[in-house]
């Protein structure tokens, strides 16, 4: 819809971003693929012989691997379910008439701005610690034995922390989506004789579908690579009970200095992310009109 000159200028302005992103995609990816076929230990000097797919075999047959995959999926799925369900309920509540709505909003979104390492440390020590955390104090006050969150349920504890961080995001987006609902639609439904629950099910929920899609897409991008929370709280343990794929790759490459295995794990992580991405992009491509 435009003239030749402006199109040429446009291409020129577009190219730095495209070239940089292309390099950022291709160079490290190629190197990862290359390293993943080498026997490459950071602490062993000398040549890095080609070993074919042995790193993959080593990485994938490691029992920690299947645990990490399952943990990754449970983490992503768990946080998504919690944040979306609670997010919808909270959004419905915040949409009601009340005093101090603005302040309530500020309080609810605050956790989103807390850096992951801080929220992980605060939760781990000041709330979930079995010796001096607030939850332990609460248990003692009602005569129960304090629960050892990170010893007994490490993954669930991590999920709780991550969900606390992301609940504000889901709530805020769903609240915004909710407020864009045409009030006349609800009034029409009321005139048509639909009781509140049916109005929620047939009018409000379908209207929120787009918001929910967006929440799922964006959160998945970030949740697939949850790292700091695990690093700070459990360090993947006990054993590998709370190790997800990013943490496993990190541990192999930078804690055990096995570049080859780490790279192989990286490739696996990329494949997993792409499988998820294909589904998401298809769903979202329809919803996000570019």
């Amino acid at each position, binding site marked *: *819809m*435009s*003239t030749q000159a402006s199109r040429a200028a446009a291409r020129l302005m577009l190219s730095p971003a495209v070239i940089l992103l292309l390099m950022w995609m291709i160079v490290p990816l190629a190197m990862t693929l290359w390293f993943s076929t080498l026997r490459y230990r950071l602490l062993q000097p000398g040549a890095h012989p080609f070993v074919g797919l042995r790193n993959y075999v080593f990485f994938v047959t490691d029992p920690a691997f299947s645990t990490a995959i399952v943990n990754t999926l449970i983490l992503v799925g768990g946080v998504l379910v919690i944040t979306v369900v609670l997010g919808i309920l909270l959004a419905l509540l915040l949409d009601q008439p009340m005093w101090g709505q603005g302040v309530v909003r500020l309080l609810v979104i605050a956790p989103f701005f807390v850096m992951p390492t801080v929220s992980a440390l605060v939760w781990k020590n000041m709330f979930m610690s079995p010796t001096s955390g607030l939850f332990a104090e609460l248990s003692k006050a009602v005569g129960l034995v304090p629960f050892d969150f990170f010893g007994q349920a490490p993954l669930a504890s991590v999920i709780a922390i991550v969900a606390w961080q992301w609940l504000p995001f889901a709530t805020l987006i769903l609240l915004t989506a909710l407020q864009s609902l045409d009030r006349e639609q609800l009034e029409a439904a009321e005139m048509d004789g639909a009781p509140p629950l049916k109005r929620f099910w047939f009018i409000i929920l379908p209207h929120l579908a787009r918001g929910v899609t967006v929440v799922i897409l964006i959160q998945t991008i970030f949740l697939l690579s949850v790292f700091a929370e695990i690093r700070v709280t459990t360090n993947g343990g006990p054993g590998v009970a709370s190790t997800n794929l990013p943490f496993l790759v990190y541990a192999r490459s930078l804690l055990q200095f096995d570049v080859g295995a780490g790279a192989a794990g990286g490739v696996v992580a990329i494949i997993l992310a792409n499988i998820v991405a294909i589904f998401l992009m298809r769903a979202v491509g329809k919803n996000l009109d570019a």
Partner: protein
Amino acid sequence: MGMIELSKVTKRFGYVEVVPPLDLTIEDGEFCVFVGPSGCGKSTLLRLIAGLEDVSGGRIVIDGADATAAPPAKRRLAMVFQSYALYPHMTVRKNIAFPLRMAGMPPEEQARRVDAAAKVLNLTPYLDRRPGQLSGGQRQRVAIGRAIVREPEAFLFDEPLSNLDAALRVGMRLEISELHERLRTTMVYVTHDQVEAMTMADKIVVLNAGRIEQVGSPLDLYKAPKNVFVAGFIGSPKMNLVSGEGARRFGAETIGIRPEHVRVSTTEGTWTGTVGVAEHLGSDTFLHVHGTGLAETVTVRVGGEIDLRHGSRVHLTPDPDKIHRFDANGLRLP
């Protein structure tokens, strides 16, 4: 001066030819209206003249100079957009002065011209407001002000009234016509509303699917539409078009008769039918007559104070001199 000549102008988007090769001359000082249904290419044609789109072929000559490859700024044309396209962050004064500022005109001269334009358009009290604080009609006037300060060779209007409500639309229509009377500058005006076309134009260009159906003065088009399309498009209420047996009796494939050229009687006439809906406007009454065997409905215009109601039996007689006859290709028969 502001004469615009298009020769063999073509526009393709990809493989789709939106405007097939087209010739048109707009005389200096003329008020020329492009009219047609939506998607007929009238806006594209205007944007080709403006230089906002590149032509795919042909030549555009403005004021005797070839402007085919010239950028919009160099064509000495001013345009009023459908959405007004005012700069929201600038005051009315700055909006109107913008083209002068771009031309590097000295500030005193800018101020003088802006004040003059504001006076003409009754915008003086609003000069320091922002577009967001103005009503639709006022925004429209700012857009026109921004166009006139440059004293361009020609004005281009792209459906400028379509965002206004009905009453304002009539008022602005008059203002634009008066502006043309006063400035005598070429104006090219795009609309889908044939009433605007009829009331404002010196010359109407009827477009359909990128092609020119007919060029002429409003009365030419009204009296002698070249084909069925123009016949059906120009005039309100629409011309009654009748095909088949009713038309063959007049030696044509299709005949057309305007609602105002049919006489109505309660006793005798050529055709007979029953009144469906009678729209009483006060000055006129439009009768929609069914069951004539000609077309589903025949619309007739009668005097305002006639008292015919739903279900009345009426007889219709067309004025034989005012029957338009068309052949099988839809072209006018002599």
